[in-house]
């Protein structure tokens, strides 16, 4: 299989880029793919913490691109899956420590060894963003159902197109079906109307994400997490599989229906 470099970006901060990267990376590794996740948020790294690999960091992306160590030395093998690796960002440097040209060379070198190269992009549209998209051939834009997030996603899609990345897909994160049904939250179709790109998946709001993030165990590892299940489906779509879209009915609603049925039976 030809290896793919996918940048995960959003423009706005806090919408779930890092969570998405960690979960998709882990889900792809669960499927037996060779995956490397690159954290390009130099100075504000998080992906290592979310993956629970923070205490293994010895060398980072800045050491690797500047030749302080070999690229292979900077890669951290995941503690759960053999085919999963992390290239952590530096924490004591800033975004200018790496150039887009260096990023491009590095992702090209990684293509030899990995099926999927997931690049976790920092928030914003400055140097960090330019670094992150430099070596990518596809982009995944994460947006939450909020006007500000959708506005920023639109800006990002424009910048990606200008940089020659036309194959951009959308993940809508943290959707609450009850609020959507009440009309209090933007609908999926509203968002797609505005952004006009292909929908890759919808991830429901899930408290399990907070728990798993704090524990350093991606939610896809848990069978009960609904967000984790959504990420597993998105990962299958990334490999080219046809997977039906997430249904907005959450388990509580199903339970309610069940209760109603019981009441009716009485």
């Amino acid at each position, binding site marked *: 299989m030809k290896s793919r470099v996918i940048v995960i970006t959003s423009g706005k901060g806090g919408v779930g880029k890092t969570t998405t990267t960690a979960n998709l990376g882990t889900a792809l590794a669960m499927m037996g793919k060779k995956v490397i996740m690159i954290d390009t948020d130099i100075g504000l790294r998080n992906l290592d913490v979310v993956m629970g690999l923070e205490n293994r960091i*010895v060398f980072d992306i800045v050491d690797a691109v500047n030749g302080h160590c070999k690229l292979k030395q900077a890669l951290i093998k995941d503690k759960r899956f053999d085919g999963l690796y992390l290239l952590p960002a530096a*924490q*004591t440097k800033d975004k200018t420590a790496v150039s887009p040209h260096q990023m491009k060379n590095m992702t090209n070198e990684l293509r030899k060894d990995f099926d999927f190269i997931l690049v976790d992009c920092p928030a914003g549209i400055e140097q960090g963003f330019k670094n992150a998209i430099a070596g990518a051939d596809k982009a995944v834009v994460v947006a939450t159902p909020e006007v500000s997030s959708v506005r920023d996603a639109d800006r990002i899609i424009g910048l990606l197109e200008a940089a020659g990345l036309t194959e951009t897909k959308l993940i809508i994160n943290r959707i609450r079906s009850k609020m959507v049904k009440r009309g209090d939250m933007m609908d999926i179709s509203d968002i797609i109307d505005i952004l006009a790109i292909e929908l890759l998946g919808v991830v429901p709001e899930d408290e399990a994400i907070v728990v798993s993030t704090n524990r350093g165990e991606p939610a896809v590892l848990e069978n009960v997490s609904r967000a984790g299940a959504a990420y597993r489906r998105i990962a299958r779509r990334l490999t080219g599989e046809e997977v039906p879209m997430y249904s907005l009915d959450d388990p509580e609603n199903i339970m309610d229906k069940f209760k109603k049925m019981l009441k009716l039976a009485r």
Partner: protein
Amino acid sequence: MSTAFKQASGGMLIDLKAYNTFSQMKKGLEKKLTSVTELPIGSKVSIDIGKKILSNKQVRELEDTLLDFGMHLDGLMSGRMPDLEEDFYEDPLIEGMSHYDDTALICQHIRSGQKKFVQGNVVVLGDINPGAEVVAGGNILVMGSLRGLAHAGVFGDEGAIIAAYRLIPTQLRIATHITRPPDGERNVVDYPEIARIREGRVIIEKLKI
């Protein structure tokens, strides 16, 4: 061990050659001065320290001891040239700890993304948070919680130590050794701990002083 008073030309000579450490030497001097009462106030005294070498501070301490007994230090007699000497220091508080002359004091919390580098020892009055790094040529002492990364003996000193009021690091490095806490385990202790290399491994134990 004997501390002998000898008549030397123009003054007194005290022989402190036999003592191995500075603290023993100082105690020996005090003992001798207490036992001898016939010396007139204001006498000039020379001290023979044999093959040892003393720091300026230690010489001043000997002077102070003599002044307590009403005597002045006339001179030090040493058998070796100072530039060839082995270091002679006070007994370290922690056994086997490496000695460094310069110590930096950092009075602040060191936060994520901050990196401190010190040639010799470093004492941190504050915490080292996750994502922060403290790198020292010598020993590291944290009078707070060490939650981030500390690297002692960065130039290769395997005798360097890392001590902290609460030692809960992301990663510890001493010389070329790198360690991290085991996955999943979190053993919480409420006493200061010290990390050092023993038999080629970094070990952590309760800090006893």
